[in-house]
């Protein structure tokens, strides 16, 4: 992974904007930003406490060639995908998608922040739901709660006990999922074949981009 990082850094030298444009999905939109700040101002998250940089600043940092700061930033991972920025951008920059594209690229070349909760969730969620075509909520929750160790996991689970019981009562959560008896897709093989094909196509496309 870090090899890919070095390859890319070497190839694009001091042109990080070009790197993002060519390698990150939707990266070609970065140059359209006119720094009005409507995206950041419309963001519902409290980025000053939790985020390193709001989207508008990320865009400017890319242009300024701050490669490490951008790729290692937690900002892209804090996006809640509310799409406020996307619908309001005066230049019609798909801000949400650009942020996701940069996040994915940072992850792909091994530069994304380690143990970042959203990143962890994305990966866990993907692995979980692609197994049967449906999400196993109990296992997903477990893997999230116990991310930082057994003690922290038990504490979190106790805190959320009432919510979990409520969900069980409302039949929104099946406790049997813990032992693998869970809802699943009718045609598991079919969906897995589709995902495998999609994966193959994506890998092919990215490999071509990386080679080019």
């Amino acid at each position: 992974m870090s090899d890919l990082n070095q390859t890319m850094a070497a190839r694009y030298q001091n042109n990080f904007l070009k790197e993002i444009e060519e390698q990150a999905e939707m990266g070609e939109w970065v140059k359209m930003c006119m720094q009005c700040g409507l995206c950041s101002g419309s963001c519902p998250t409290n980025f000053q406490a939790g985020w390193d940089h709001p989207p508008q600043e990320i865009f400017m940092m890319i242009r300024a060639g701050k490669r490490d700061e951008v790729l290692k930033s937690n900002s892209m991972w804090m996006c809640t995908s509310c799409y406020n920025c996307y619908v309001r951008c005066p230049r019609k920059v798909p801000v949400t998608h650009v942020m996701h594209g940069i996040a994915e690229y940072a992850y792909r070349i091994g530069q994304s922040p380690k143990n970042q909760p959203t990143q962890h969730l994305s990966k866990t969620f993907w692995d979980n739901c692609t197994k049967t075509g449906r999400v196993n909520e109990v296992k997903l929750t477990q893997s999230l709660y116990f991310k930082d160790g057994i003690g922290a996991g038990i504490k979190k689970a106790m805190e959320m006990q009432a919510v979990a019981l409520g969900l069980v009562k409302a039949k929104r959560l099946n406790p049997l999922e813990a032992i693998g008896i869970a809802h699943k897709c009718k045609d598991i093989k079919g969906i897995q074949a589709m995902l495998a094909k999609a994966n193959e196509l994506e890998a092919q496309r990215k490999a071509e981009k990386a080679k080019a």
Partner: protein
Amino acid sequence: MTSVVATNQTILVVGGGISGMTAALEAAETGKQVVLVETNPYLGGRTVQLYRYFPKMCHPTCGLEINLRRLKANPRIQVLTLAEVTGISGSKGNYSVSVKLKPRYVNANCTACGECGKVVQTEIADEFNYNLGKIKAAYLPSSMAYPQRYVIDSSIIGTPDAERAKAACKYDAVDLEQEEEVISLNAGAIVWATGWQPYAAEKIVYYGYDRFPNVITNVEFERLADPHGPTGGKILRPSDGKEARNVAFIQCAGSRDENHLRHCSRFCCMGSLKQTHYVEEAFGDAGKSTIYYIDIRAIDRFEDFYQKVQANPNVSFVKSKVARITQDKDGNPVCNGVNVEGYKRYATAHDLVVLAVGMEPAVKGMDIPADVMSDSSGFIMADPANAGIFGAGCATNALDVNRSVQSATAAALRAIQVVNKVARAEV
């Protein structure tokens, strides 16, 4: 009933704002016959609704007076107010145009004495002042209105109010029998100068123009500052009539925005810079202005005007497009956004927020009964296939008064060339 003398050597000018008046005057002063058609009951358009011009900070009434003098002195211009072009047929050098004339219910006997306005009780929205106040249904649209004649609003026709107005008139000027009529006239060339309208600010949902009384538009602010305006020139905010000493201006409210107007409206930066002078003029050092901007586009030779405003300690600039306006418990509008210099969130309360709304061409969506081409913003340009119709002023682009006049003069010259050709052919 209304008779208009027009031949195929006549130039028809549609729109009686600064562009239309200029085109009409320039053409008429070279000896051409001109018919000037205006949909409002008065000439001057949006220019006369301004308090002052930039960059010289003089009053539009001054320029208007000069133009009206030229107009009155020129027998070759026929002015039709409350008139709308409804159909154009024919081709370059030989157009036939139908014009719908709405009744004014007041004839040329009117001396603008105002007796009818005193007796009429019904009140209507004051369009001249962007509906900031109410006026009587028998009214003079503005103090500088030309023609200087009252108008009786059609809403009171057939009511006792209309009879009261008629009875009060000593000059037999009130004519309640007037009816809408459609006339047709000839023209060799047409100048289309229908101007612009302020962008509908309520469409920018996150600024809450239709939710917060103290969020107004730049054109409304002009009326607040004007001594002839609804507040007598006092800058009072709409919610409680308190003096608005701390005023925020939000640039690009609707302009340069693919979701609203995709073009830069050009005049609004200079407009807001100008309006900071109004705040200072009203309150001195106690008047504070804040301009929220993406970048200031003080076009052309106006950079020095911008620099002078920048040097003013009572005016501050925040490089940021405000993302949302909220309202605090005292009714103050609060601007929320992220500052580019440091990328910090701000939530700043002001007494009044002025949205520098952009120019939307009035021709956009208008059913122009002729072939014209328009750009992606709706501004028109001459269609080579129908080369006798020329756009002028803000119908063609987002322009300030100065550039509108230039554009109108150019259009007049093109129209003159068409009718000259007609004249030569007929000799």
